[in-house]
């Protein structure tokens, strides 16, 4: 399926109540295997858009993922919802909200066991992931006792444990030390090379050239301002200022 769109949004809006939009008229197509970065100011609607794509909240307009319309009604079918969640991995900005098991190992094995994998295979998969993200020594630790960077690694490992086709990450480098940030960039690119679709929301403009094929900018009016290549967008100082992504003293 070379030309399959992973996600298609047609005139998608979301509001908490009438007149209070957090996302307005989004038209967007993301191909399978693309690396897309969402840029925008605080409150611009990046997280809302990601949650709609992850099938966690539902807006107005038409949203299709891998050829299927995603609505509140279809997500009520538990089998469909489980298949969708397996296909789309979501890494939240606040890792605390998605880590709920007693130990790091349980956390990573939760997904594989839930999708019916045998214990031995799930355990082996978890060990591979622990080695991959470099937290083998933390396997028996409680997630809440870890540092921010370690929690983020556990959250990523837990999401990767079900081998999703698409990964949605909300501010993945926020609060990480430079070494862990570099690890994150390397990991995301390795996942991209293996064919994963990436949709990353960030404020960090330095991250963009390293992890994006395409950049989408959401404005303070909750609309999509521009959709283009990283070079084009990062070199458009007026646009970055308009979108409140830089200030006048910023070197960009």
């Amino acid at each position, binding site marked *: *399926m070379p030309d399959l769109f992973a996600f298609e949004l047609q005139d998608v809006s979301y509001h*908490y*109540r009438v007149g209070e939009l957090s996302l307005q008229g989004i038209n967007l197509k993301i191909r*399978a295997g693309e690396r897309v970065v969402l840029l925008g100011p605080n409150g611009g609607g990046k997280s809302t858009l990601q*949650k709609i794509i*992850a099938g*966690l*909240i539902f807006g107005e307009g038409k949203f299709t993922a*891998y*050829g*299927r319309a995603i609505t509140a009604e*279809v*997500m*009520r*079918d*538990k*089998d*469909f*919802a*489980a*298949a*969708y*969640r*397996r*296909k789309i*991995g*979501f890494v*939240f900005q*606040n890792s605390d*909200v*998605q880590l*709920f*098991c*007693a130990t790091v190992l349980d956390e990573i094995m*939760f*997904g594989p*066991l*839930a*999708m*019916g994998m045998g214990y031995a295979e799930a355990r082996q*998969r978890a060990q*591979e*992931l622990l*080695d*991959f*993200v*470099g*937290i083998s*020594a933390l396997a028996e630790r409680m997630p*809440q006792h870890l540092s921010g960077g370690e929690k983020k690694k556990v959250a990523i490992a*837990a*999401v*990767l444990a079900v*081998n999703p*086709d698409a990964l949605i990450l909300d501010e993945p480098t926020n609060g990480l030390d430079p070494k862990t940030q570099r690890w994150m960039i390397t990991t995301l690119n*390795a*996942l991209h090379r*293996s*064919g*994963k679709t990436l949709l990353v929301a960030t404020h960090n403009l330095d991250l963009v050239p390293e992890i994006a094929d395409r950049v989408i900018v959401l404005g303070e009016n909750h609309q999509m301002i521009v959709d283009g290549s990283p070079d084009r967008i990062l070199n458009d100082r007026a646009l970055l200022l308009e979108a409140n992504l830089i200030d006048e003293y910023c070197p960009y």
Partner: protein
Amino acid sequence: MSIKHSGALPKYLTYNEQQQLPIARKAWWQRQDYLEKTLVDIHRVIVENLYQKDVCLHPSFLQRLEPRVKVLGAIFLIVMSALTRDLFNLAVFQGILLLVALLSGLRLKSYLGRVWLPALGVSGVAVLPAIFSWITPGEVWLVIYHDLSLQIGSLVLPKELAITQQGLTVAAFVLLRTVTSLGLVILLMATTRWDMITKALGNLGMPGILVMVLDMTYRYLFLFLLLLGDYILGRKSRVVGGEQYRSRLSWIGSALAGFLRLLVEYSREISAAMIARGYTGEIHSGLSQSPGRREACFFIIVIIIGIALWGGEWFARLICI
């Protein structure tokens, strides 16, 4: 601790499974998941708060008044409604409250729902047995059964069951007093920003520490509600297979534990931040607005209505004279 990454992706991650999504089955009826329901409730609370913020800022009748006058007026009328022995006056007062709600830009449906639903659900249910002759004997208003021998186990029921006028009066008093108190509190809260209410309470003599606790509770309640919403979404995003009831219960347990832990962490941080900003235990709060002629007129009207509510027939006779 030194952390070593293996570098290479695990083999299973080097390919996409490319499984097609199944076709969703349409369910004609499905019970709403309680976690979903919690999410919906959180959303509702946030929307209601946004609506309330708009109503507070709307330059309507009650919004223009100084908060202290509104607080005192509400307290005075609540006391008067508790003292009154005239049902008719209480009923008329409901009309006045409704009129004030409309003049202050509140939606009728929202006001009635917030006042009458809890009143009927709590006081209404509690007072329901009082309308029957078994609890409140008196003049019969409606006979339910007469001259019938009923026995449940060893319990022999009286031969007659009726609704009595005295019972109805007692129930109506309890219900209308509840509705009056709730209506007044809702009018006050819907037309006054929370920080203004707490400042007014502080100015009227409530200890500063209590005012601060009320302020912070409101602020952090929302923070934790939002966090709870994210907790539920975080779990939802990872449910990739059939879920067992036991696993859900265990999640709820761990989520509660997580919340308590966060509460403790937040409390420590907040306390440190307050001390860093010079908090010494003394609270200084003030209101920029001062009572003027408008507030004086309002308070006189409130006193007249309050006395009318309490005085009943005596007041009506006084006015006639």
